């Protein structure tokens, strides 16, 4: 055979392999892009919802008994509106339902509890089975029994509700008020560990229960998708446990290759941990800074008397206060 024949034979053998691997690579590449796109869309939508929550933040102040359901409703509505517009399917009911079922579980984290907004099935007044997102009852963050007698309900802040199972007494207050009774509350670190575990376990328990319910529904109504318990990073949990926010689990967007699409996104609204701005005078010069600033807490002290609080740095500057040169608020 001549050299060209060898070359052609070589090409005929190698070409299918090259073609197949090249095609697979292209698919994997496009799949990665698609997943990154879904991630960005969901993260964006959650941030929008968190923004709406922080805009309506006055309902979440400490100890207020005002109704938060309007804000919750608004937050989830914003989340879905943002998703619909991102996929350009607004006012297209079939596609909107498709998108809804890709975000089957939203967890709304409040200061003293959390509630699930998740797909549920019920009979409506005409005896049709309806499947749509519903609010589930609010659950509290309840931890393990401490000292074999105290059942503690935690909040996102320092406040705790303690039930003494021996004397049947119900108490509430800052955790430091209970440090004589409960040894774990003596230091801030051990309290934080207990609190984080309690919140995390309450949410996980509730979520696991819901997954079982959802997968039962799925068997009855032929969903293609089985909901799985997502793996959440520890850092994200710590982030979640510090503020009012929305935790969203998205699964089942169409992908091209490999594992099913699975993503969770967390939007913290920065309501509770929002550092207020404090103004003070130092050598007759007005300054403003955050209350967490070391210079402020060491030199001025919180109870020096001549301090003034602002809600925003703009407000402080409008009153002639300079930004603190140490913490640059």
């Amino acid at each position: 055979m001549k050299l060209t024949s060898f070359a052609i034979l070589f090409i005929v053998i190698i070409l299918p392999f090259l073609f197949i691997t090249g095609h697979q690579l292209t698919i994997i590449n496009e799949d990665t892009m698609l997943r990154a796109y879904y991630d960005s869309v969901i993260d964006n939508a959650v941030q929008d919802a968190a923004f709406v929550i922080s805009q309506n933040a006055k309902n979440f102040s400490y100890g207020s008994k005002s109704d938060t359901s309007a804000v919750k409703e608004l937050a989830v509505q914003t989340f879905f509106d943002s998703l619909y517009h991102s996929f350009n399917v607004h006012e297209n009911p079939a596609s909107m339902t498709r998108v809804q079922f890709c975000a089957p579980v939203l967890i709304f984290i409040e200061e003293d509890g959390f509630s699930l907004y998740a797909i549920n099935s019920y009979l409506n007044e005409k005896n049709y089975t309806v499947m749509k997102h519903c609010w589930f009852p609010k659950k509290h963050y309840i931890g393990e029994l401490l000292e074999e007698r105290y059942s503690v309900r935690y909040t996102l802040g320092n406040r705790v509700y303690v039930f003494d199972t021996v004397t049947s007494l119900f108490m509430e207050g800052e955790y430091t008020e209970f440090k004589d009774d409960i040894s774990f509350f003596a230091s801030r670190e051990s309290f934080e560990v207990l609190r984080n575990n309690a919140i995390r376990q309450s949410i996980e328990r509730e979520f696991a229960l819901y997954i079982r319910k959802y997968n039962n529904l799925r068997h009855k109504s032929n969903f293609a998708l089985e909901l799985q318990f997502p793996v959440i990073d520890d850092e994200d949990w710590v982030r979640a446990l510090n503020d009012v926010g929305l935790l969203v689990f998205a699964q089942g967007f169409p992908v091209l290759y490999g594992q099913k699409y699975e993503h969770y996104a967390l939007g913290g609204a920065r309501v509770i941990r929002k550092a207020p701005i404090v103004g003070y005078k130092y050598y007759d010069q007005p300054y403003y800074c955050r209350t967490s600033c070391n210079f402020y807490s060491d030199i001025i002290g919180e109870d020096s008397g001549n301090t003034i609080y602002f809600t925003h740095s703009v407000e402080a500057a409008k009153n002639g206060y300079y930004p603190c040169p140490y913490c640059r608020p």
Partner: protein
Amino acid sequence: MENLWWKVFALILCATLLFLAPLLNILERQDDIAYNVVFAECNRFADACRDTGYITPNMYQEFVERINSTGNTYEIKLFHINRTVIPVYTQTEGGLTFTGEYEVSHILIDEKEILDTLFPGEDHLEELNRYEFKMGDFFFVEVKNRGKTMATAVRDMILFSDTQTPSIFVRAGGMVRNEAY
């Protein structure tokens, strides 16, 4: 005679494999890079608009220049979805009666109106012509390539096909979070 056909066939095969296949490969990589650039720039532009609450002609021109630097031509669409809360009235015999309810309507404003505001023509060069959003509105930017990219053209030539779907398509944006004007 038989030998001649054999040579022609070998020549075509050589041309395809030595020239077109590597070219296609390079062009496809170029498309991937272009997609990444467009994706990043769209997100950057949309985020800038959402965080400030307005578009200025400079912002828009810079965005167009940046995505045009990839070497393709693009069709850019801007969507401003205005959320307005309107009361619901019902028609009764005595005229309109307020039902006590409201609904949120989403009104789509497309890029024509936005661009008319940004670039009103030569008579208005001195004016501060920026397009302003309301906090809570939605803003999206959608970019797709116009015509075919080089990679698509070469692939179509090899495979004798005619691809109509754009190879670069990005939609980015979300809710407007600020009114810094």
